C-alpha cells in the first residue's frame, strides 16, 4: 500500500466494479510475457534473414528499456515494476521497427524517449497516451533520418548467420520494397523483387528487406492468432486495419481507380506487425468494439495516405501515433447505452 505523495491520485490498489466478482488468473505480467513470447519466432527468423546483429540490437533495446524503466521508477519514487514484462515488450517492439543495420546506440536513445518521456512522465503503465515503442521509433526517425531510412540489409539466401561469420563482408545494404516502389516506380520494383505469387509468398515468409521484426508476416499472424485465441486481443483492430489498408490501396493505389495491389500492400512494410501488435495496445487504443473498428479503419486510411502521398515510404507508425490521442474521443462516441436513466428523469 505505498502511496507516494508525489502523485496526483492515490495509489490504485482498489477495484471498483459491480458484483459478482469473478477473478481470473490473468495478470498484466502474464499477458505481457505471453506477447513477448509470441514475438520470439519472428525475432529468431530475422537472425536467419539478416544475421546476428538483429539479435544484438533487440538485446540492447530490451536491456536499455528495462534500465530506463528502473531508473525512472526509482527517480519518481514509484514501485519498481520491471518484472511485469511491459518494458521488455516495449524494448522488443521498438527493436522490431528499426532497421537491422543501425548503430547499437540508437535503441538506447530510443528507450529514453519511449519509457521515460512517453510513458513515465504521463503517469506510467496504463496512463501513456501514445504507444511507447512507436514513440521511440518516431523520435529516432526525426533525430537520425539517414540511418533510420537507409540502414537496410538485404535478406541472405540460405543461412545468413553462418555466412556472417565466414565472409569478411558485414552486410549488403539495399532499399525496402515500399521505398523502391515510391522512389523508383513499379517497373524497378518488379525487376528487383519479381511479381506474382512467388513475390507474395517470399514477402509473406519474410525474405525481403525491412525492419528487424516486420518482415515475417506468417509468424506474426500466427503469434497474433494465438493472442486472439487466448482472448488477449480481439480480431476487431487487426482485421479492420489490414482490411482497410487492402481496400484503400486497391481503390487508390494504382494508375486509375481500383488498380492497386491489395495483397502486396498487406504483406509489405510493417502492416501486419502494426495491426496485430502495435494498434492492439490496450492503453492507447479504444476499448469499445465499434470504437475499435473505427480506430482500425482510421489507421488503415492514414497508412495508405502516407504511403501514397506522404514523404515517407511507410506510414503505419505515424498512422497509429496520430490515432492514439483520438482513441478516448472515439470511445466517447460509442459509449454503451445506459440501461436506465438517472433518478429524477433522463438527462
Amino acid at each position, binding site marked *: 500500500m505505498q502511496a507516494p505523495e508525489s502523485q*496526483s491520485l492515490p495509489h490504485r490498489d482498489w477495484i471498483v466494479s459491480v458484483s459478482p466478482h469473478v477473478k481470473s488468473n490473468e495478470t498484466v505480467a502474464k499477458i505481457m510475457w505471453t506477447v513477448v513470447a509470441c514475438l520470439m519466432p519472428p525475432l529468431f527468423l530475422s537472425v536467419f534473414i539478416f544475421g546476428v546483429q538483429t539479435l544484438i540490437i533487440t538485446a540492447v533495446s530490451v536491456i536499455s528499456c528495462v534500465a530506463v524503466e528502473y531508473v525512472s521508477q526509482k527517480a519518481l519514487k514509484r514501485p519498481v515494476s520491471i518484472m511485469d514484462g511491459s518494458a521488455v515488450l516495449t524494448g522488443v517492439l521498438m527493436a522490431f521497427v528499426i532497421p537491422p543495420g543501425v548503430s547499437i546506440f540508437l535503441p538506447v536513445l530510443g528507450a529514453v524517449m519511449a519509457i521515460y518521456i512517453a510513458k513515465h512522465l*504521463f*503517469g506510467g503503465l496504463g496512463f501513456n497516451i501514445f504507444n511507447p515503442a512507436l514513440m521511440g521509433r518516431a523520435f529516432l*526517425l*526525426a533525430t537520425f533520418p539517414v540511418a533510420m531510412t537507409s540502414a537496410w540489409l538485404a535478406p541472405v539466401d540460405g543461412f545468413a548467420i553462418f555466412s556472417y561469420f565466414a565472409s569478411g563482408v558485414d552486410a549488403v545494404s539495399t532499399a525496402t520494397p515500399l521505398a523502391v516502389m515510391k522512389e523508383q516506380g513499379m517497373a524497378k520494383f518488379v525487376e528487383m523483387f519479381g511479381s506474382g505469387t512467388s513475390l507474395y509468398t517470399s514477402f509473406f515468409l519474410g525474405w525481403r528487406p525491412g525492419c528487424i521484426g516486420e518482415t515475417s508476416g506468417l509468424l506474426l499472424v500466427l503469434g497474433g492468432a494465438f493472442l486472439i485465441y487466448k482472448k488477449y486481443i480481439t480480431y476487431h483492430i487487426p482485421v479492420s486495419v489490414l482490411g482497410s489498408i487492402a481496400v484503400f490501396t486497391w481503390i487508390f493505389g494504382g494508375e486509375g481507380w481500383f488498380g492497386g495491389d491489395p495483397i502486396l500492400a498487406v504483406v509489405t512494410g510493417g502492416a501486419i506487425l502494426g495491426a496485430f501488435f502495435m494498434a492492439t495496445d490496450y492503453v492507447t487504443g479504444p476499448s469499445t468494439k465499434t470504437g475499435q473498428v473505427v480506430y482500425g479503419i482510421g489507421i488503415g486510411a492514414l497508412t495508405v495516405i502516407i504511403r501514397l502521398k506522404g*514523404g515517407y515510404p511507410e506510414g503505419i507508425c*505515424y498512422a497509429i501515433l496520430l490515432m492514439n*490521442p483520438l482513441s478516448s474521443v472515439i470511445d466517447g462516441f460509442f459509449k454503451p447505452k445506459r440501461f436506465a436513466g438517472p433518478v429524477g428523469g433522463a438527462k
Partner: protein
Amino acid sequence: MDLFFLAISATFVNNILLAQYLGNCPFLGVSKKLETAIGMAAAILFVTSLASLFTWSVFTFVLKPYGLQFLQTLTFILIIASLVQLVEIILKKKSRTLYNALGVYLPLITTNCAVMGVALLIAKKELPFSEMMVFSSFSAIGYGLALILFAGIRERLLISAVPKSMQGTSIALVTAGIMALAFMGFKGMAS
C-alpha cells in the same frame, strides 16, 4: 485540385500550430476543457478568415499599389485588433456562455500570432483571392483540429498519475512536442 492540395497542406502538412509553432498561448490556455477548445477553435476560424480577407484587401488594393508594404505589420495589427473587438461584442450579445467560457482568451486573439502569421504569410506569398480564402480558413481549421485533439488529451491527463513536477503546463508542452512528432508523418505530402 490545386486548391484541394492547398487545403490539405494548410490543415495537416504545414499545420500552423504543430509544424510552424504559432499561437501556442491559447493552445495551452484554453485546452483544459473540450468545450472551451471548441469555442476557441470556432472563434479562431471566424477571426482568421475575416481578418485575412480584410488584410488581403488592404494589402492588395492599398499598400501594394502605393509601395507601402513596410506598413503591413502595423496595418495588420490594427485591422485584427478592431476585428477581435467586433467578435467580442457579437459574442457578448449573442452567446453569453461562450463569452464567459472564453474569458480572457478572446481579447488575446488580438495578439495571437497564428492570426497575424496567416495574414503575413498570405501577404508574403501574394496569394490570389480564392487561394487566400482556402489557405486562411484551412489554416484555422488545422489550428482548431490540433486544439480540440489536444483538449481531449488534457482531459485524459487530469485523471493520470502525472508526476507532480510535470503537472499542468509542463506535461502539456511535452504532449504538444509529441503531437508535433506524430504530425511529422504528414511531411512531404501535397508539396
